């Protein structure tokens, strides 16, 4: 896979990511906080690694629950 340079995101990618996060927010199967974490990750200008995606998409246990 090509090296993803740490460059500002292009207008086309920005458009995709804007639409993507909107779709995820309206998706009941994806937690809103996970959608925001994923959005922030994808806008970093780097290719996300599997661990980063795991961290973004996993729902941490809420406080007060085991």
């Amino acid at each position: 896979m090509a090296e993803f340079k740490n460059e500002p995101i292009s207008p086309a990618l920005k458009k995709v990511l804007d639409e993507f996060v909107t779709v995820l927010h309206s998706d009941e199967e994806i937690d809103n906080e996970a959608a925001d974490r994923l959005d922030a990750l994808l806008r970093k200008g780097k290719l996300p690694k599997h661990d980063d995606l795991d961290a973004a998409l996993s729902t941490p246990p809420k406080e007060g629950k085991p």
Partner: protein
Amino acid sequence: MIRIKSIHIEEFRGIRDLTLDLGGKNFGICGPNGTGKSGVVDAIEFCLTGNVTRLSGQGQGELSVKGHAPHVDHRANPDMAKVTITAAVPSLGKDVTITRSVKTPRAVTIVPADPKIQTIIGELQSHPEFALSRREIAKYIITPPAQRSTDVQTLLRLDRIGELRKALLSYANKCKRDAGEAERAQASAETELKTALNIPTLDRKKVLEKANVHRSVLGLPALTELIPQTSFMEGAQEEGKDAKKTVVAKDVALADLTTLSTAIHSGEPDDLKVHRESALASLKKLKEDEKALSLARAHGFITAGLEFVTEDSCPLCDKPWDADELRAHLQAKLLSAEKIGTLLEKIGNANDAIIGVLGDRAAGIRKAAGYAAALDPVVSRAELDAYTKVLGDAITALKTFEDDHSMIEGAIAVLEVKWWEVPEDAQTRLDETEKGIKALPDRSAKDKAIELLAVLQDRYERLLVAGKTAKSMTARNATAQHVYDRYNTVSNTVLEGIYDAVAKEFTEFYKAINDDEGMFVGELKAELAKLSFNVDFYGRGTFPPGAYHSEGHQDGMGLCLYLALMKHTLADKFTFAVLDDVLMSVDTGHRREVCRLLKTNFPNTQFVLTTHDRVWLQYMKTEGLIRKGQFFGGWNIDTGPRIWDDKDIWAEIQEALDKDDVPRAAALLRRYLEYISVVLADNLRAQVEYRGDSSYDLGDLLPPTLNRWKDRLEKGIKSAEHWGHGDAQAALEEKLAEAKILITKSNAEQWAINKSVHFNEWENFMKTEFKEVADAFKALLDHIRCQNEECGGYPYLTPRKGSSEQLRCSCGAININLKTK
């Protein structure tokens, strides 16, 4: 982005020492071939990016910036080759000086060292497409769809969208594999529990029944429910504290070995055989195609080859061939990307099933090895461990292929080996292990019950963990697939939108420069790994641009597609572009339209345009596209380009008059008026007497053109009156009155009847007489052209055919309605 104010070039390419003052405006460079125009373009590219595409692009293997960018006399002194650009940064309201030397092409000196300016220069560096040469136009037009897809995606920075898609797909694939593995682990844990309990199916009632049988042997109360917290050993610890410890539960171990033995002796399972043969056939097919594809990628061999298969023999060696057969053969080698995707999915599914069976076998052998090592005397486990390793390596090879499809050989090797047949030495160890276990003394009923409950507890807990993991992995996989699907849908929709918008923009641009093609339409259609570009051909359908359109039209299309793409890529950051000889083959009839297109659609973009055609440069000036230009009149290796100033015509005439050289001043004015009369006659659709040899002199053109000017103003007055636009009517009446006075002063209407004022006589005029003539024409032309400083263009009628509806200039400051209906 930036706007270049000036550029200073030293010892770079064919240039020794050159300074060009662009003033931050559009700029034209004109000169015959080989006079150094492209050297300026290279210098701009080098200074802004550190690279020279002409030296580093495709097919330039032996060339390099460091080795060949310096002037040939300074190849050994690359530090002498440097370029300095002074530019304005409109978005920051600042000026910047950028200097780069060939000695260290990656190092750029930016003054002031403002981080915001550095970011902008960095962006330029990542957008070398601001410079477009005529040769590069081809890549947008006649390139194969797959290459166009790559080029366009790179230009639009769509590659990032694709890279993110790949990252999400890779993650989704990993989640799918992990979920599959977790499911298999759960199934394996279930099998182990069933084996220990000796039951064919796993249900709560039967598990409890079996466990309670053993508990009753120990006199323990029956368990009534099976929950995660259930302890089969509850109370058994006390019973078993005096029992002699054993490491192998004889009955369970024999059951495990029986299960393994049954699997071994039944050979390759039928369903596995189907998967293995299917995967093997697909992998071999892919391997063959990969060869073809790599050839195509490396040399465009097959694609290019197909283009040559038009004759009955090889164009190189003249060896006869059957063209149809050869074409079919080459096409068969080109497996489409879509087919490859389907093929890989098929292989992936088969591999997953095979990995599952390999994993089960490895687990069974590992367990048997554990029993072998626990026996007294021990049975050697080395052979069993070796077999486990073979199975593990096979799993790794298949997984490696899933991650990297180039690792195809290892996957094929796994599928060609009969790994389900246990090696002889390992089988011997299995037999010895079984024999050793059978030879173990039978335990008391109580001890047996304790052993079985302990194994049951262990396997139950492992099943619980495996079940929990499988559930979590399944949920993770569902989320990953969902996210990937959503991203895919969104990105495809956005890309289609972008391509549609670019195609629409392209169509508008192309129609603007070819108004005789009113029905023209361009289509950009994205398919997997390719981007098709088709254009209308006079309403007969859409075809690739190279199919029927002339080279000139293709160049026009290339420019329009480039502009549409840049507009979408950079939006308001598209403030600078270098078009190197790009307009060369645009025919005369469309040149002004190209100038208008650039001027009206890209008013905030600074264009640097090179051409070897002086008339082209003049058109650019007349249309107000450029204000300044530079003529390169020759070149030699010692001095570089020979340049002279592109002077204003009126300044040149005045210069001649200052030297009392009326004949030269007269010749200059006549030549200029001849040129401008052609432009105005065309713009105003003047009614000129037709000549078959197209040999029109000033007398043929200018009087009817000036009459047409008055006539169109009169028409505008009538229209304004008709629509009740009093202010416009008054302004036009004033303009018409002014036109009549200025035309009278020019004496152009008198040429036919008064020979003494005829332009042929100008060279015999006194200096003061001629000065009056020149001033009169200057005033007349200034009166006709747009008064907006930024425009300054001559008005033209629209549409170009049929009843004229509007008299306007490029910027719209002149906008006279001619319609009365």
